[in-house]
């Protein structure tokens, strides 16, 4: 499967925050040729483990983390006419929802569309100035209340129904690229590592529940307790109306973050490897440690040296998120060659301030 086919499968598989188990079989089949072992922890984090060449009894470990959960909706109420009111799981702009096709995951998965009051019943002024609010929206499935209640219940999750679209220049657009693009980067890095020698054991972790507060990164890092960790996520891609200080260019390489969550030695390693191998990259500046799995990894147990690589992505948390697969490919090369460059000396240096 090439990366375009794989990202399509990854994005079109449903794994709303808290309900990620559905995507694990796909991850197993994507990783199985490149790794030695799989493990799944109590919260549902999935780890693919590739042993390094170190012959130590307790070999060093690096943890790579990309979250497998996606934002979604949850059934709150089924009204007497069969319309479903919902709440959000993760940060969703209600303005992006009207006219959206969704799947409601009950005893079976059924299709619906998100509706709202028709515009001809609103004043021209309201139409122009008032955005749809979450409590004005609902899912319309065509079923009556009685029929619906046979299939779905309050608390069932609702996912966006969107096929991944292939645009020009290896750009793709769809739902859940945040952070299946990161998962793809890990899979491609595992593949790259086949032809490199690395001493360190590599744990490729697809984390759960990032979108509601990096829950999975906290427990998986505690469990594996690596010597160092790199989170792989998406960052805002430049687009009109967005300040260039808070977004990165599209298709000009992954970003290497510098901020309170980043250990400077790993930052330097990533940057040096990128320069040495002529891999395009950009620097992303963060004034806060939060926002990605790196924040949770950094303070696990007695602390983990952490870094963050991101893929520029436009229209974050919509159903038409857009990335360049080139940025993923370069990120995977950067990860693989950086992992291969890690030796004892580097690991010892992580404590030396």
């Amino acid at each position, binding site marked *: 499967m090439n990366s375009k086919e794989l990202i399509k499968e990854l994005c079109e598989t449903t794994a709303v925050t808290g309900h990620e188990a559905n995507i694990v079989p796909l991850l197993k089949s994507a990783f199985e040729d490149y790794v030695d072992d799989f493990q799944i922890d109590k919260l549902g984090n999935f780890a693919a483990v590739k042993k390094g060449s170190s012959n130590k009894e307790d070999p060093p470990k690096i943890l790579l983390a990309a979250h497998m959960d996606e934002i979604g909706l949850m059934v709150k109420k089924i009204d007497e006419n069969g319309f479903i009111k919902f709440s959000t799981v993760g940060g*969703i*702009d209600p303005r*992006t929802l009207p*006219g*959206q*096709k969704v799947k409601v995951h009950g005893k079976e998965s059924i299709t619906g569309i998100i509706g709202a009051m028709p515009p*001809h019943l609103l004043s021209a002024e309201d139409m122009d100035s008032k955005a749809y609010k979450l409590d004005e929206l609902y899912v319309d499935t065509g079923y009556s209340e009685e029929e619906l209640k046979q299939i779905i219940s309050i608390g069932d999750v609702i996912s966006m129904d969107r096929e991944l679209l292939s645009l020009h220049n290896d750009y793709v657009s769809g739902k859940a690229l945040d952070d299946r693009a990161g998962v793809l980067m890990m899979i491609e890095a595992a593949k790259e590592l086949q032809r490199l020698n690395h001493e360190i054991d590599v744990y490729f972790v697809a984390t759960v529940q990032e979108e509601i507060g990096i829950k999975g990164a906290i427990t998986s890092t505690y469990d594996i307790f690596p010597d160092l960790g790199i989170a792989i996520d998406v960052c805002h891609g430049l687009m009109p109306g967005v300040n260039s200080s808070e977004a990165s260019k599209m298709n000009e390489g992954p970003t290497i973050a510098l901020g309170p969550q980043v250990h400077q030695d790993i930052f330097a390693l990533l940057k040096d490897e990128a320069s040495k191998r002529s891999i395009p990259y950009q620097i992303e500046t963060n004034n806060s440690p939060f926002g990605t799995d790196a924040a949770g990894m950094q303070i696990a147990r007695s602390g983990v040296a952490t870094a963050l690589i991101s893929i520029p992505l436009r*229209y974050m948390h919509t159903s038409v998120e857009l990335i360049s697969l080139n940025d993923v490919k370069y990120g995977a090369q950067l990860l693989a060659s950086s992992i291969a460059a890690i030796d004892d000396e580097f690991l010892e240096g992580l404590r030396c301030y």
Partner: protein
Amino acid sequence: MLLEKLINATGISSREKEIRDLIREEIKDNVDEIYTDKMGNLIACKGKEKDGQKVMLAAHMDEVGLMITEITSDGLLKFQSVGGIDKRVLVSKPVLVGEDKMAGVIGAKAIHLQKKSERDKPIDFDNLYIDIGVNSKKEAEKYVELGDVAVFSSEYEELGNGRVIGKAFDDRVGCSIIAELTEYDFDMPVYYVFTVQEEVGLRGAGVAAFDIAPDIALVLEGTTAADVPENKEHRYSTSVGKGPALTLMDRTVIADKNILTGLIEVAEDNGIDYQFRRTDVGGNDAGAISLSREGVPSAVISLPCRYIHSPLSLIDLDDYSKMSRLVKLYLERLARKGI
């Protein structure tokens, strides 16, 4: 199924070719004559030489869409709407651009980057654009020209309970029913007319009606259903699943009383559910046809559609077959005893 083909095909106002070709191919063997006029209306007729009143059945082929009006330096496509589109349904939707149906998406600034004041307001056309995945204006120009059009990218799909979703039910339902009616013979001259440019101001229908000079016109439409939560029952305009809707009056026409009475009698005699369209908002080809030459008695029969003029609207297939049956039985009555 013809309806499904018509829904998945695209044709915004003045670019109705794909729809016209599809319908022509579908009905050409059923009719005596089939031709197009200077505007692109597709006109078919049967029984031209027969006695009886000359009937014009009309439905519009065009759908609402977008036209590319500017390419930004980043290679993003700015657009304006062709026909009435609520800008609030555009965000976060895929579209098909140009004749080659190139994939594009209409994005929005991430919620993380919005100020609180921005979240309460709809995103204006000024801040919406289509992203086709190019890096510069120069690169975009390889694929797109100003004036190219874009349509919603969504497919016909069946939901539960005989409900189906898709784009452009307004007015491919009318086109589909009229096309299916060409299979029958009525004992009078019947013109089956598929009009252009309804969505930009009822432009095609008047021209076609002038040419045909019918004695009576029936317009088949898709109309708004507002039977949704947080709306009051008296403001429903129409309801999905309660049969075809008859227009009393709208912004463009007052339905002919005799036709309306005939339609109601046929519905009642045959146990066909029907409803009245309970709003005077909106208008359709009947407005133009009824004013053609010295005037044409006209009526409108509509299929209720929820979320009309959006990427996905919803109809009930039962309503569709009831509407089709009502029109057919009314035509038989018309042939039998006139208006």
